[in-house]
């Protein structure tokens, strides 16, 4: 369900980036999705399609790259991949961690046509 909230923010940022760079169409938006966000790709695709309708990004392709969730143990500094329901360090068996990666959705790139640019 939170895919809708995230897609809304994503489309807003993508359109802002397009505008700042003088794009008048957006054909593709590439994002990096952290596993800890628990995002269902099909749901965010659907939400994205709805949100771009009627904008310069209508019909744009959403390219999703998933990255794992990573944590660093505060006790032993071990870096390890986090399971969704279990953040315990495999060495200390304690969940005292700092999430280092995979806890956000980033826009990586926006592809579109610039004014005065040949396709």
């Amino acid at each position, binding site marked *: 369900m*939170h895919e809708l909230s995230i897609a809304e923010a994503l489309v807003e940022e993508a359109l802002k980036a397009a505008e700042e760079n003088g794009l008048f169409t957006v054909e593709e938006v590439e994002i990096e999705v952290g596993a800890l966000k628990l995002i269902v790709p099909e749901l965010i695709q659907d939400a994205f399609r709805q949100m771009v309708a009627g904008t310069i990004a209508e019909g744009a392709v959403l390219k999703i790259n998933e990255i794992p969730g990573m944590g660093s143990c505060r006790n032993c500094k071990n870096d390890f991949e986090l399971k969704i329901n279990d953040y315990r360090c495999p060495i200390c068996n304690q969940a005292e961690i700092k999430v280092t990666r995979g806890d956000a959705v980033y826009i990586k790139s926006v592809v579109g046509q610039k004014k005065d640019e040949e396709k």
Partner: protein
Amino acid sequence: MKISVVKNVLDSNNIVARKNREIFKEKGLIALNLISSPGSGKTTLLQKTIDRLNPAHKSAVIVGDLQTTRDAERLEPFAKEVIQINTGMSCHLYANQISESLGQITLKEIDFLFIENVGNMVCPGEFDLGENLKVVLLSLPEGDDKVAKYPTIFRAADIVLLTKIDLMGVLKFDLKRVMADLEKLNSSLKLIKISSESGEGMDEWLNWLKAQRKKSVGVQAKFIPE
């Protein structure tokens, strides 16, 4: 053409949230974001909590609901200031809704700002409001499997309140299971078993609140009467 962006999609919200946090620090108050499913007892707990913080500590509440001003009406007799935000279709509050509300509160007179988020265990966890601490409520009737089902919000929590603990004898609720699931997400997480009905856990919660306020406000603290 391809433009490299590399931007967190929640950037615009997070920037406003950071500004809110600076305002809280400057005004010497602590802001708590209360997150839970609808009906787990946020408003009732706030009524009791603010009543007990009075008159030594002044509280303000910003409460988000899709519709109605009912929660604001319930809180008005207790809090110094109450602001209701109707979010319409949105299932969570945004940082800019908080920053707009702050303009309507005499912040320098407030010690505790409670933000009752829209009842929802998912989206409110995504949107930083600038709060100092996230308080996550889980009520007994919701069941003992919810930590495992909604791990994101529980790992973001600074404290978990197990509410309606007075129903322990009535419901099948495996407390050990909840503790074990929380332990896997954050081994040092603070948990309080609490009831607005029987008053169990209220002292512990109030002491925790007062201690957090001293800690978070630090040297800029106003005189805090006990």
